[in-house]
C-alpha cells in the first residue's frame, strides 16, 4: 500500500466524519424544529378534519332517532271535520260559509312562522263554524333536505293522516318539530310513529306512508298550483309561486296581521 493511497483514504475518512458531524448538528438544530412544526401541523389538520366531519354529520343528522312531539297546540272543536279530497285536506264545520286555501310545505321555515302566527286566529273561526280551510301540502322544497324527499314524504303522510281524521294533530306536530333545511328530515318510520302517537290505529296509515300512496296526486297538484297565474306573487324575482300562499275567492290573500278577520268579513 503506497503512501499516496493511504493519504487519500485518510482524507476521505476525514471528509465523511466532518459531513456526519454537520448532519448531526443539523438534526439537533433546524431539522428538529421542522419535525416539531410538521408534527404539530399534521396533528392539527387531522383533528380539524375528524372533528369537522363528525360535527357536521351529527348536526345534519340531528333528527335521527328523534321522536316527533305529538302534543297539539290548537284546540279543535269535536265537530270540526277533517277529511281528504284528492291531494287537499278540507277542515271545518259543514255549515262554514267562507273558505280559504293554504299552500304550504312542511320543510318551509316561513310556513312554520305562518302557523305560529295565525293558527290561533284560524282555529277561532274554524271552531266558530265560520271558516273552512283547504290545506294543500306541497313538495316545493323536496330537494332541500339531505337526503332529499322529506317534503313529499311528509305531505303524503299528512294526507294519510287525514284519512284517519288526524290531519291537524299530525300537521301541527310536524311544523312544531320542523327539521332544518339542508339537513336530514324525518324518515317514514318516524312519520309512522308520529301517526300512532296522535292516535292513528288503522294499519292502512303505515301502508300509505311506506308506499307513497298519494305521491303522484301531490306531484300533479303541485304542478298545476305552481303554474296557476292566480296564485303567483312577486317575491322579488318577478311573478312566481311560493309557500306559504293563502287564497280566498280565487285571489291571493295578503298576509297582514288581520287577514283572517278580513276573509271572514
Amino acid at each position, binding site marked *: 500500500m503506497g503512501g499516496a493511497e493511504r493519504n487519500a483514504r485518510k482524507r476521505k475518512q476525514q471528509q465523511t466524519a466532518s459531513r456526519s458531524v454537520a448532519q448531526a448538528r443539523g438534526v439537533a438544530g*433546524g431539522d428538529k*424544529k*421542522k419535525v416539531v*412544526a*410538521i408534527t404539530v*401541523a399534521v396533528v*392539527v*389538520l387531522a383533528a*380539524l*378534519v375528524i372533528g*369537522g*366531519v363528525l*360535527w*357536521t*354529520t351529527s*348536526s*345534519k343528522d340531528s333528527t335521527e332517532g328523534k321522536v316527533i312531539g305529538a302534543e297539539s297546540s290548537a284546540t279543535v272543536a269535536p265537530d270540526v271535520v277533517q277529511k281528504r279530497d284528492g291531494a287537499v285536506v278540507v277542515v271545518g264545520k259543514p255549515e262554514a260559509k267562507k273558505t280559504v286555501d293554504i299552500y304550504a310545505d312542511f320543510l318551509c321555515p316561513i310556513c312554520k312562522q305562518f302557523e305560529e302566527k295565525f293558527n290561533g286566529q284560524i282555529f277561532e273561526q274554524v271552531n266558530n263554524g265560520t271558516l273552512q280551510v283547504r290545506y294543500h301540502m306541497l313538495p316545493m322544497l323536496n*330537494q*332541500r333536505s*339531505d337526503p*332529499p324527499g322529506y317534503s313529499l314524504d311528509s305531505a303524503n303522510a299528512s294526507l294519510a293522516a287525514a284519512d284517519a281524521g288526524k290531519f291537524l294533530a299530525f300537521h301541527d306536530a310536524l311544523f312544531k318539530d320542523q327539521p*332544518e*333545511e*339542508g*339537513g336530514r328530515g324525518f324518515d317514514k318510520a318516524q312519520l309512522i310513529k308520529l301517526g300512532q302517537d296522535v292516535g292513528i290505529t288503522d294499519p292502512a296509515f303505515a301502508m300509505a306512508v311506506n308506499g307513497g300512496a298519494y305521491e303522484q296526486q301531490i306531484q300533479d297538484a303541485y304542478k298545476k298550483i305552481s303554474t296557476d297565474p292566480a296564485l303567483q306573487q312577486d*317575491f*322579488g*324575482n*318577478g311573478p312566481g309561486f311560493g309557500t306559504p300562499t293563502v287564497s280566498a275567492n280565487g285571489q291571493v290573500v295578503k298576509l297582514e296581521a288581520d287577514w283572517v278577520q278580513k276573509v271572514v268579513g
Partner: protein
Amino acid sequence: MGTLARLGLAAVWLVSGALKISDPGQTYIAVQAFDVLPDGLVRPVAIGMPLVELALGLFLLAGFVTRWVSVLSVLMLAVLIAAIAQSWARGLSIDCGCFGGGGQIAADQTQYPQEIARDLGFALLGVWLIVRPRTWLSVDGWLGNSQAPADDDYVGIAEGNE
C-alpha cells in the same frame, strides 16, 4: 405589510370557515344553490369546504409554509369567483354564502360585482404572500435560516432546502 396580508387573509378564512361550519344545513343549501355540482357531491363539498378554509386560516395564522398555503388560497378563491361568476352569467338569484348564509334570494338583492370584487381583493393578499412569503411572527421565520423577513429566495420547507 406582508405580515398584515398574512394575518388578514388568515382572518378571512377563519371567519368564513367558522361561520360555514356553525350552520351545516345553510352551507348545504348555499352549495346547492350554485347549481353546478351533481347531487351526490353537494354534501361532501359542504362538509369539506369549511374545513379547507379553516385549515388555510390556521396555517396562515401560524405562518407555516406560507407560500404554499397562499397558492392554495388563491386557487380556492379562483374557484369561488368562478362559481359566483357562473351563477351571475346564468342569471341565478343567489347569495354566495361566502360568509355563512347563502341560497336563493330575490333578484334585486344579488351582489355579484361586490362579491367578486371582494374575493379578488382577498386573492391579491394571497398573491402578495406568494411573492413575499416571509413575514414577522411566523413559524417559517422560526424555522428559517435568516431572522429578517426579507428573504425572497425562501421557498418553504415543503420544497426542502438541500
